[in-house]
């Protein structure tokens, strides 16, 4: 055990590879690569594992699924639909469910994994945003992440459109209606995509290629790039004892992280299998085959489409008719604006932040959300906007549950989608400032010790004791954002913001937004970034040591 040579089989393999590819030299530095530990770092992992599960179960489904809109008469085991005319796609999905052993299980695992994939990507994105982990050098991975999310939504929509049941067909009909309303080219896009009128005979087989080949291929490439960049740049970590911008603390990849990741993969698989066993999802046999003139009442799309559904529901019925042309704002705005707004905003955000704060440093320490009140508040604004749209997508259910009229809920959300985000902004900012204050107080006066003493005067007071070392390191990890200086005073080579032009004014205003509400943690505050214009990242290490009383 204690010799430096591994067992012969391993040594032989490594030797074989090494002599051909120089493997040992390559892997040597990788094996002990450190991965910091925090529960929120697992969210991205869940997304990765559910993606792998999707690839595996999806491949299984392709073996039986027939992506054809050709008509057949069903004679499978589900007797309630015996003799019914339906497309081959629907017929084969019924067969996967009832006539292939394990087929129903794989279908349900596939669908649950899709839900988990998108849910975990969303929460992962929020983690990255609220901790400022998208900052330099990780902006590109942030953009790749946004691409993965958007493609994931599309992939999911296309996936549940494949079985050609009544629910999926209704989703397709809405997609087609949106396509058709696009100004100038809409009808052409519609006719080209569907190979003629709706529903036509081509769409499912085209969708199939996109769902099983095109998008998964792009996703795979993006996921690969995402993780290679992550590996190369290293993971962010939260500040804490001994943690600096320049180091990373954690257990080594081999063996700890590797087995931990394996365990986590197995947990993800177990959870999707559990859901696939007990939680019925998309019971297509209850919906019946698609026909364009029928609909199931109260049908709901997958959760990740909910915000679009909500936007379509609460949009007022505005339409412009000019010179024989129709511009249906009632469709275009809800279909394009929310996602466009959120995605464009998210994509530009890292660069806006850099521009406004003049902060071009490398960041490896993740912020605590409270310490960046503006970012956190803007994030919560977007989350609330999204959340309101999402809830509006279920307004019929809400109306039913709370016994209010359907139209009242629509009107409520028409207001809430604007008012909600504003409230969220104000409240979040207050909360952040409050939390910063209590952090600063804790640093200065310590925490309540839970010991009550009686003073000679007869008064009772609670003892305070200094914050523990680890906790203090966390508190002191707060970085203060620098106010940009006025043009002319800038000696550090930052493109001088001419504070007179409109752009300069905007920058100054944004900068104020970023730096306002920054509660100083007091003596020796910040960790050397206070005036860090164009400063090199080395600054972190030394200062931090001093602060953490190392």
């Amino acid at each position, binding site marked *: 055990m204690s010799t430096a040579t591994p067992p012969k089989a391993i040594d032989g393999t490594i030797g074989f590879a090494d002599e051909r590819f120089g493997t040992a030299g390559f892997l040597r530095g990788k094996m002990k690569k450190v991965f910091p530990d925090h529960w929120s770092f697992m969210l991205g992992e869940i997304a990765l594992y559910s993606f792998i599960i999707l690839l595996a179960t999806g491949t299984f489904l392709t073996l039986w699924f027939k992506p054809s809109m050709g008509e057949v008469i069903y004679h499978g085991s589900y007797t309630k639909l015996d003799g019914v005319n339906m497309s081959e796609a629907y017929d084969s999905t019924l067969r996967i469910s009832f006539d292939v052993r394990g087929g129903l299980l794989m279908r349900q695992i596939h669908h649950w994994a899709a839900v988990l994939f998108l849910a975990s990507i969303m929460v992962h994105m929020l983690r990255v945003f609220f901790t400022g982990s998208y900052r330099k050098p990780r902006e590109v991975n942030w953009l790749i992440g946004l691409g993965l999310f958007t493609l994931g939504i599309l992939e999911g929509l296309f996936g549940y459109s494949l079985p050609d049941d009544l629910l999926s067909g209704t989703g397709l009909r*809405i997609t087609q209606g949106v396509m058709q309303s696009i100004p100038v080219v809409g009808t052409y896009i519609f006719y080209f995509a569907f190979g003629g*009128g709706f529903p036509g005979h081509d769409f499912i087989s085209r969708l199939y290629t996109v769902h099983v080949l095109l998008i998964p291929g792009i996703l795979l490439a993006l996921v690969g790039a995402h993780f290679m960049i992550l590996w190369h740049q290293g993971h962010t970590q939260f500040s804490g004892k001994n943690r600096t911008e320049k180091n990373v603390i954690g257990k080594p990849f081999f063996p700890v992280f590797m087995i931990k990741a394996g365990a986590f993969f197995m947990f993800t698989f177990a959870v999707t299998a559990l859901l696939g066993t007990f939680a019925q999802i998309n019971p297509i046999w209850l919906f019946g085959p698609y026909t364009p003139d029928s609909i199931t009442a109260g049908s709901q799309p997958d959760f990740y489409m909910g915000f679009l559904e909500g936007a379509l529901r609460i949009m007022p019925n505005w339409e412009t008719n000019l010179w024989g042309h129709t511009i249906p704002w009632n469709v275009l705005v809800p279909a394009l604006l929310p996602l466009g707004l959120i995605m464009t905003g998210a994509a530009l955000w890292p660069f806006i932040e850099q521009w406004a704060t003049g902060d071009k440093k490398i960041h490896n320490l993740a912020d605590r959300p409270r310490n960046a009140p503006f970012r956190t508040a803007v994030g919560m604004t977007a989350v609330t906007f999204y959340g309101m749209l999402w809830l509006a997508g279920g307004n019929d259910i809400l109306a039913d549950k709370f016994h209010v009229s359907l139209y009242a809920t629509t009107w409520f959300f028409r207001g809430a989608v604007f008012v909600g985000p504003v409230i969220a902004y104000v409240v979040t900012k207050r909360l952040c400032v409050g939390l910063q204050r209590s952090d600063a107080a804790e640093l200065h006066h310590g925490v309540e010790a839970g010991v009550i003493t009686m003073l000679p005067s007869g008064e009772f007071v609670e003892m305070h004791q200094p914050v523990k070392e*680890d906790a203090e390191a966390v508190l002191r990890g707060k970085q203060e954002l620098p106010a940009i200086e006025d043009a002319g005073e800038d000696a550090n080579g930052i493109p001088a913001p001419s504070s007179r032009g409109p752009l300069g004014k905007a920058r100054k205003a944004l900068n104020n937004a970023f730096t306002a509400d920054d509660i100083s943690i007091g003596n020796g505050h910040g960790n050397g970034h206070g005036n860090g214009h164009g400063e090199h990242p080395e600054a972190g290490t030394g200062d931090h040591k001093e602060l953490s009383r190392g």
Partner: protein
Amino acid sequence: MTDNNETNGAPSDEEGRAPKRVIGTPPPPPTHDLLPDDTGGAEGTGGYQLDEKKARAAERAAGAFFVLTFVAGIAFIVFYAVWPGHVGNINRATSSNYALGISLTLAFLGLAVGMTIWVRHLMTSKEIIQERHELSSPPEDRQVFNEYFQQGVQESGITQRRFLRRTLLLASAPLGLLPLVLLRDLGPLPEKKLRHTAWKNGTRLVVDGTGQPLKASDFNSPGGIITVVPEGAQNNLDDIAKAAVLLINLPPDQMKVKKGRENWHVGGIVAYSKICTHVGCPAALYEQTTHHILCPCHQSTFDALDSAKVIFGPAARPLPQLPIGVNSEGYLVATSDFHEPIGPSFWERGKSKV
């Protein structure tokens, strides 16, 4: 932080996990990015040592979970191969789903829990501090790259040779268009197809599903509603997607008939397109007391008494009305196609009526 406590474990042990081995690399060369963890404090720098008793218990526990996976895996195979009750009807599919699903879940769960116990309680790796390497390359590299690049550009002659450069750009332009051109045959052009449906003067209204033609007398229950399609198009989904019609029996005295539509209904029986003018869902719900038609997709609401005009929701236009009459045999028929395009809006919608 429990992790830190672990790193401060007792000094080296008989198993020979000396500090160097824990770090796992030969004496590090100066530039190496792995630094030994010397922050462990005075208690010693040895690897984390396990309490052998606890470790054995953990090993047994992890082992038990791996055995669970083994058993569940076998159970899955046995269920799959031997048990006859998988397919044939919905009950069988359900119990098959339970049998296979539970064993599959347990198999993964056993591995997951076993591995977690292994990592948590049996691994002796210490927490290590690693310096991050500089991401950008040293300035020399940048400089050398720039030089090579400039040199290469010079040597290639692309900057001096204008004709070469321009013809190259010219050559690539049509190539970029090829993939687009190739997509042309994806579908026919829409032309006027969105303006027409399968309804013509004299087409009989037949009940969706059964294909039965209707007489006005067959449809005499007040407040009745039924979906009809053009005769001959019952099995053509493309036709139905445009031509589906809601036939509603309204009280004639409450109807507000639009000018020019006086003879579009048959004694209160009106026909509206069933395809919602929002994004095309079937507007299928009908409230008999209010005579409102509701589209379940985004809740556009239309007033059947008043030419199906929009009274709530995102739809911008009324449901188009199909003019109907009665033919010589007494059957309900269309007297023409719709007078406007049905369904969702589109760019060319208002263009010349052809």
